[in-house]
């Protein structure tokens, strides 16, 4: 009755409003989600799904996360599942690896990956190599995550990109998401993966909103580790990138499009295992390749991609 009364009172506008409501189907609700919130969702969902999952790191609990990625989780899950550590990376990374060996599924946060250097022995020698050295007796299901690469004016000690260093080691999976969907789907996959995964986020991407499809909003949305995504189709040149530099590539592609140059932008999503096939397929089409990364060029991610392309079976066909 209330709606009939307001309808009669508001006159013409109300009629058209009612008509609009009745005859327009609403499209699936895509929402804007920041990378930070996507990570938070992924953590929340995985903590809820599996009792053995827990998060430890500096300021992850009562501070809500140094970059607020773990906001609200301590309130919801408590001291047992969300653990604040002292500033002792080597110690707590080792503790996390030991917990993984004994059957839990820890997520070990480094406030930035620069500090992971203090603990890199535990990541490589204790986590990555153990399954191999034990000939399959001892798996290590752990995720090391945190911001990687340059931030805004934080100086050399706080700006290193570790994709190449971790990408060098067998036994590790190394993931580097760009968008909110990447962040959510890949973090969930990383947590469910039974192997050590290094998950390289980027501080400057945390606040960037992306459209997240309805499918991506589901609690079981996973993205496969080891598969790149073509963010933009093009025929003239392939731009390969990961993390924040994907944004840079898309911006560059927009500028070049005005000059009639269509770039194909590939978002690597995973550093190791590298999706060389996706890059090769693209280069076969465009015959031009540029790698764009935040790390140093020597012995870097781009160097590896170029080496693979040049060693690839189709390289000489390009000529």
């Amino acid at each position: 009755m209330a709606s009939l009364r307001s309808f009669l009172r508001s006159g013409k506008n109300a009629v058209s409003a009612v008509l609009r409501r009745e005859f327009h189907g609403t499209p699936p609700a895509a929402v804007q989600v920041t990378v930070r919130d996507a990570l938070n969702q992924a953590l929340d969902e995985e903590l809820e799904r599996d009792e053995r999952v827990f998060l430890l790191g500096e300021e992850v609990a009562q501070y809500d996360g140094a970059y607020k990625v773990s906001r609200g989780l301590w309130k919801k899950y408590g001291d047992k599942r969300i653990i604040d550590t002292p500033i002792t990376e080597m110690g707590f990374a080792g503790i996390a690896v030991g917990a993984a060996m004994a059957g839990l599924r820890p997520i070990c946060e480094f406030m930035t990956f620069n500090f992971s250097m203090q603990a890199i022995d535990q990541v490589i020698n204790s986590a990555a190599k153990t399954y191999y050295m034990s000939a399959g007796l001892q798996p290590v299901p752990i995720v090391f995550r945190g911001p990687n690469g340059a931030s805004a004016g934080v100086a050399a000690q706080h700006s290193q990109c570790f994709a190449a260093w971790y990408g060098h080691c067998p036994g590790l999976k190394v993931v580097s998401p760009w968008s909110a969907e990447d962040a959510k789907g890949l973090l969930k996959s990383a947590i469910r993966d039974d192997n050590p995964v290094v998950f390289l986020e980027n501080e400057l991407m945390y606040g960037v909103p992306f459209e997240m499809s309805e499918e991506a909003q589901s609690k079981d949305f996973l993205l496969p580790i080891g598969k790149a995504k073509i963010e933009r189709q093009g025929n003239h040149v392939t731009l390969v990138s990961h993390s924040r530099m994907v944004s840079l590539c898309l911006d560059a592609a927009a500028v070049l499009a005005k000059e009639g140059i269509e770039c194909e932008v590939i978002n690597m999503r995973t550093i190791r295992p590298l999706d060389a096939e996706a890059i090769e397929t693209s280069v076969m089409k465009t015959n031009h390749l540029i790698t764009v990364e935040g790390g140093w060029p020597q012995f870097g991610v781009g160097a590896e991609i170029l080496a693979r392309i040049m060693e690839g079976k189709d390289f000489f066909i390009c000529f």
Partner: protein
Amino acid sequence: SVEEFLNGARVVVSARTYADFTPQATFDIKKCDLHKLEEGPPLQAVLTREEGLQYYRTMQTIRRMELKADQLYKQKIIRGFCHLYDGQEACAVGIETGINLSDHLITAYRAHGYTLTRGGTVREIMAELTGRRGGIAKGKGGSMHMYTKHFYGGNGIVGAQVPLGAGVALACKYLGNNEICVCLYGDGAANQGQIFETYNMASLWKLPCIFICENNKYGMGTSVERAAASTDYYKRGDFIPGLRLDGMDVLCVREATKFAAEHCRSGKGPILMELQTYRYHGHSMSDPGVSYRTREEIQEVRSKSDPISMLKDRMLSNNMASVEELKEIDVEVRKEIEDAAQFATTDPEPPLDDLCNHIFYNDPPMEVRGTNPWTKLKSVS
């Protein structure tokens, strides 16, 4: 007839039945030095005949296994690193008798003894040393990377196993299974920063972790006086209560471990034990072990404090076993080691297509680049 009777009597007299042996005896053991503890382990230990024979057999097995490994190494059948445990047997055996197989243990690279006490067989340990497919890690781990259930190695990086052990203890507390983790390191590792980081977190979070420092007086070639400003390793945990005890006496080690395990299981948090022990060999097979210590010192420990001799003397002087019986055990142990060495020498090496397996767990098979881009190797989980 009288002859028959006398023959029968001779037989009866010369055979000693088990009914003749003392079933158990109580031994005085040395008092432990205590740190931040009101009371320590008991000053007496009860040893039954069965226990004594079992400890003797296990210690003798470790001893002979390590000596056989020495031999095989010199014949170049074992290569790479080989860190021998002879002299320290009472530690491994004593600790295991103080805990359960359902508890957890982690140590550094001097790990062959622990691999045995934690359920490995001599065969699979020796075959792992020789790098054969029958090895406990299929020949892919070697001396320093052997694993069994609830035994996390065998770790090559000095000190790294200590945070790992605390992590295992965290899992025990998290899962509420009343299990504990024994986390071992040496006097050399005791100065590592990550160990102090671990003391801090284990104490803060009351992890059920027994930290054990096996102090064999030398970190490779450096004596404890030259490496540590404080050689009271049992006090280095500061806020963590500690015990220092004779690591050559298997009963001392057992009682202290029981005491420490009880402490952890009751929720009081971590505890630290320092076992004073000695290794007869050098740091590893590439170290003769006499450039930084005298042969006289080694000989003195062998004659005065050998753990196997100590147990043997105790049992014999208390009529808990006979010389023949112990000799019989020696013979059996020797045979077991010979068989194992034979197996370890003749078992084939792992097949080449095992080279790239076990990179990832629970993953579909993948291709791995070989030495050149056209050689692809297969990897399965």
